[in-house]
C-alpha cells in the first residue's frame, strides 16, 4: 500500500524545484478535486501533469485544446456501424483517470463547458446515454497567461470548479542548471506505477476522517469573507472556496499523516484556493498591482486562530 508521500517523492524525482506546484497536485489528488496550472511556456506544467499520471497506474489522456476543437472530441460520439447497422458509442478522452487539458483557454466556451460539466458531475452524456466517468477522476488543466490573442478566458463560475489554481513560476538559477543536466540527455525520467487507483480511492476516503476544529472552519470562512469588499476586488470568493479551503487543509494534514488540521494548513493552501475565485476592478490595472499581492494581503490581514 502506497502513501501520498510516495507520489510526492516520485514527482520530485522528475520535476526540479516547484515544491508548491508538486504539493498542490498531490493535495488536489487526495482531496478528489481538479487543478488549474498557469505559467509561461516551458516551466514544466505539462511535465508535472505527465509525472503525476505516470505515478498512478491508471488511464491517462492528454487533449491539446485548440480553437477548432468540438465537445464530441472531448466527451465522445456515436458512430454508425455499417456491419451491424446500429449506432455505437465511442468514448472520448474524458473517460480516463487523469485527463490533461493542455491550454484549456484556447478552445471555445462550448468545449470548455463540456469538460467542466464532466468535472462537476463526474458523468457525461453522449446521445441518449449517460456514462459515469471512472474513479478516481482528475482533470489537470494548463493555461498560458501570455499570448492572449485568440484565447477564450474562462469565466469566474467555471474557474470555481477547479479546487486549486497553481501559478508555476520560472525556476531559480540553480534549478535551471539542474534542469539542463537532468533533461539534456533526452526524455525526462518518469517514475511509473508508484500508487494504484485503489490507493488513491483509499486516500480520498481517508481524508474525510481528518478532524477540523470549529476554530479552523471559522478561519476558512473568515478568509473567504475577507475577499469580499477587499481593496481592488470586484467580486470575492464564493462559499465553495471555504469548502475548498477545508478540503485542501484536510488533504495537507493527511499528507503529513496528522489526524487533524492546523491553521498552517489553511493558510498554506489559501493562495491556491482564492486566486482564481476573485475578480478585480479596473483600478488594479491603473495601479499596476500584481493580483497575487492582493491575495497575499487579504490572507495576511486575517489573523489565524
Amino acid at each position, binding site marked *: 500500500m502506497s502513501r501520498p508521500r510516495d507520489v510526492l517523492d516520485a514527482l520530485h524525482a522528475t520535476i526540479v524545484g516547484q515544491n508548491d506546484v508538486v504539493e498542490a497536485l498531490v493535495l488536489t489528488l487526495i482531496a478528489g478535486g481538479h487543478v488549474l496550472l498557469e505559467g509561461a511556456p516551458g516551466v514544466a506544467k505539462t511535465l508535472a501533469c505527465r509525472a503525476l499520471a505516470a505515478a498512478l497506474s491508471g488511464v491517462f489522456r492528454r487533449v491539446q485544446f485548440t480553437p477548432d476543437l468540438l465537445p464530441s472530441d472531448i466527451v465522445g460520439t456515436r458512430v454508425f456501424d455499417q456491419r451491424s447497422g446500429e449506432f455505437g458509442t465511442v468514448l472520448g478522452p474524458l473517460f480516463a483517470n487523469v485527463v490533461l487539458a493542455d491550454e484549456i483557454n484556447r478552445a471555445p466556451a462550448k468545449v470548455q463547458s463540456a469538460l467542466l460539466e464532466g468535472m462537476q458531475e463526474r458523468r457525461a452524456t453522449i446521445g441518449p446515454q449517460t456514462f459515469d466517468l471512472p474513479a478516481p477522476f482528475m482533470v489537470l488543466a494548463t493555461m498560458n497567461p501570455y499570448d492572449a490573442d485568440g484565447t477564450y478566458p474562462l469565466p469566474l463560475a467555471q474557474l470555481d470548479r477547479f479546487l486549486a489554481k497553481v501559478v508555476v513560476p520560472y525556476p531559480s538559477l540553480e534549478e535551471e542548471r539542474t534542469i539542463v543536466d537532468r533533461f539534456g540527455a533526452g526524455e525526462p525520467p518518469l517514475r511509473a506505477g508508484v500508487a494504484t487507483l485503489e490507493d488513491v480511492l483509499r486516500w480520498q476516503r481517508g481524508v474525510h476522517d481528518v*478532524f477540523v*476544529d*470549529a*476554530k*479552523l472552519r*471559522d478561519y476558512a*470562512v*473568515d478568509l473567504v*469573507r*475577507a475577499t469580499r*469588499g477587499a481593496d481592488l476586488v470586484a467580486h470575492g470568493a464564493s462559499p465553495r472556496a471555504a469548502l475548498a479551503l477545508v478540503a485542501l487543509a484536510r488533504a495537507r494534514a493527511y499528507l503529513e499523516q496528522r*489526524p*487533524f*488540521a*492546523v*491553521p*498552517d494548513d489553511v*493558510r498554506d493552501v489559501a493562495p491556491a484556493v482564492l486566486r482564481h475565485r476573485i475578480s478585480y476592478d479596473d483600478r488594479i490595472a491603473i495601479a499596476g498591482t500584481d493580483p497575487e499581492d492582493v491575495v497575499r494581503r487579504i490572507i495576511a*490581514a*486575517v*489573523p*489565524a*486562530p
Partner: protein
Amino acid sequence: MLALALPAPAQGLRALHVDALAMRTDHAQVHVGEVFHLAIHAHVRERLAALDELVVPNVGTMLLEGDERHVTAAANGTDVTETLTLEPTVAGTFTFNPAYLDAIDARTGKPMRFSTNSVRVVVQPPGPTSASAGAVLALIAAWIVIPLVALAALAMGIVALVSARRRPAPPVAAPAVPPATIPPPRTPRDEVADALRGYQHAPATGSLIRLRGALFAAAGVAAGATLRDALLATADPTLRAALAAAERTAFGPASLRDASSLELIDGVRAWLR
C-alpha cells in the same frame, strides 16, 4: 455597556445582538496575597456554543489563579460568564481596562466594539487576614502594652536628653531608608507561568487559548500568527516542543486532547524550569 463604531472593515466579524456586557469584582478593596474574582458577563440573543470574540482585560502584575468561562443557553439567547481568579502581588490602585468584543451589530449591520465599564480595585499592603480570637486578644494586649511602652520610652527620652546636654553630641548617621519595593517587570515567562496556572485550574478553551497565546508571545510572534511563524522565531527546543503540544491540544480531536493536554503541561513546565 458601551458601543463604539470600529474604524477597520468588518472582516471576519460575526453578526450579534449584544444585549448586555458588564464587568464587576467581588472585592473593591483587597490586601496583597488575598484572592478575589473579576467577572465578565455577556448576553447575546443568538444561540452560541462559544463566544471567542470576548476579550478580557490584561491583569498586569496580578497572578492569574484561574480562568473559567461558562456558556449557558437561555430561552432568549446565550449567557457567557468568564470569571478570573486573581491574586494581587503589589499594593496600589489597579484599574482594569474594559473587557470588549468586536462584532457586527445585528441591529444596524455595522461593525462595533462593545465594551464593559472599567473596574478599580484598591490593593492594600499585607494585613490581618482574619479576625480570629487570637487576633482579638493580641489587639487587647496591645491596648495595654502600648501605653506602658510609650511611658517607658518617654522616661528614657528625658534621661537621654539630660545626659545629651552634659556632653557634645556625636555625629548621627541619617537613618537608612529602606529601598522602595518596585516590582520587577513582567517577562514572557511570567505570562506563560500565569497562563499555565489558569489552564491547570480550569482547562477550558479560553485558558488554553491564553496559554497558547502566551507561548507564541514567548517565542516572539504576535497574536494571529501560526505555529510555523512561532517555530521560525525560536530555536529553543523546549519552547518549540511546548508550542507543538499547544497546537495539538488546541486543534486536535477530543480523543487526543487528554494526552496532548498532559504533554502541554509537562512541556510548559519543562520550559519554565
